[in-house]
């Protein structure tokens, strides 16, 4: 076979595989899990796939790239760089989607305390949360994942896959722990005790 003399070094298998993966991620409508990806390339050795994924992720990262390859909800997905959100919003001619403080609080309680009943959420927030629970349920950020074995068998709520996608989380374990969050509060406590002599 006659190789073209001027051709640059032929692409390696890894480069070719990266190209395949790039095409697949571009066309996918959901984050693609590793198992899903390896199913698409059954003849490819797992270590090659892993290497290609790692390199592709590196390629699609950094502050100047418009598109990032991110790990979210147990898969890989192309997403726009958050630094350029204003440009995309101008393109769509819309205001960004916003969750209210009340909705975020309710969501945080469900995320950390799941499975949790609405009454338990109310108790922590000290206000009625039925409207927020309903809204988050409609947005498919939370869902009923069971019934509590108690009087009235109240619904137990938990977060959804979409919740992970929404907040760019690999999984629930990707959330900072409450202990970590408590460190923030320690600082407030310290400010408080400074008052005392």
């Amino acid at each position, binding site marked *: 076979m006659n190789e073209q003399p001027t051709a640059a070094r032929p692409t390696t298998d890894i480069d070719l595989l990266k190209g395949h993966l790039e095409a697949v991620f*571009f066309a*996918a*409508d*959901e984050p693609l899990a590793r198992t899903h990806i390896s199913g698409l390339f059954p003849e490819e050795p797992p270590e090659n796939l892993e290497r290609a994924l790692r390199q592709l992720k590196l390629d699609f990262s950094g502050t100047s790239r418009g598109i*990032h390859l*991110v790990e979210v909800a147990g898969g890989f*997905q*192309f*997403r*726009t*760089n*958050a630094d350029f*959100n204003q440009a*995309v919003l101008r393109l*769509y001619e*819309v*205001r*960004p*989607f*916003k*969750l209210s*403080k*009340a909705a*975020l*609080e309710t*969501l*945080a*309680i469900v*995320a*950390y305390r799941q499975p949790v009943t609405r009454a338990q959420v109310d108790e*922590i*927030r*000290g*206000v*009625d949360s039925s409207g927020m629970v309903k809204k988050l349920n409609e*947005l498919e950020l939370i869902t009923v994942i069971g019934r509590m074995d108690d009087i009235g068998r109240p619904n137990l709520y938990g977060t959804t896959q979409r919740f992970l*996608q*929404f*907040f*760019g*989380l690999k999984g629930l374990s990707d*959330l*900072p722990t*409450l202990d970590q*969050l*408590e460190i*923030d*509060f320690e600082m*407030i*406590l310290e*400010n*408080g*005790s*400074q*008052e*005392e*002599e």
Partner: protein
Amino acid sequence: MATDPLRTTPPELLVRLDAFEGPLDLLLELIRKHEIDVFDIPISFITEEYLRFVRSVETVDLEIGGEWLEMAALLIFIKSKMLLPKEEFPNDEDGPDPREELVERLLEYQRYKAAAQGLDSRAMLERDVFTHPEKSREFTSLLGPPPIKEASLSDLLEALERVVARSKVDGRWVYEVSSQQLTLRSVILEIADVLTNHPRIRFEDLFEHGDLSRHRIVTTFLALLEMTRLKMIKLFQSRLEGDQLWIERSIFDIDEVSQLLELHHE
């Protein structure tokens, strides 16, 4: 404790009550502003500040939710307990602190407030980051045009009345004999056709072509009801433009559905 508890709430705190998510939120803010040690809350000071705040809202004549009064009652209860002589507890210092439960609730609430802020600071979909638009229709549907109120049957009837009024000459119906066969199905297809090119139209737009016979108006009305029932369209009332009634297609390919409808009938 209670070094200088008579400082008053700074004016910037005297804002609207609905700036706070609830009584716990307000208490935390008071604690933060006055740099109070949460484990040793000067309860009479904080009660006073809390009540002052709630009262200032009451004088503006706003309705206050029960939870605000409930917290006020709890604070007063704790305050009165604190005033009781301590002799009931033989071990002096080991008696239960009446503030303990409240402090725990405040701490727990504070944790989730921090968790909420943590979520908010993440790169959020449809706000900070976006995926392939065609592939994430379910997300982009959150955006859409500014919301308008969904129309009720009475809104529809009112809009109908306006068209009927227009159609009458000198308050009477114009009677006409038409050779045109107007069926419910043909009108549905007609409306579907218009909606294919215009996702959102005004109710009145359907009567622009001059045919304002009673038969046409009634059939159009029935067609809209039927299309609403089939979830092909949604009826909206504009908030901004008076009582304007809008018809919006609620399925993506209305043409395809109307074709299905045709097959179904023939």
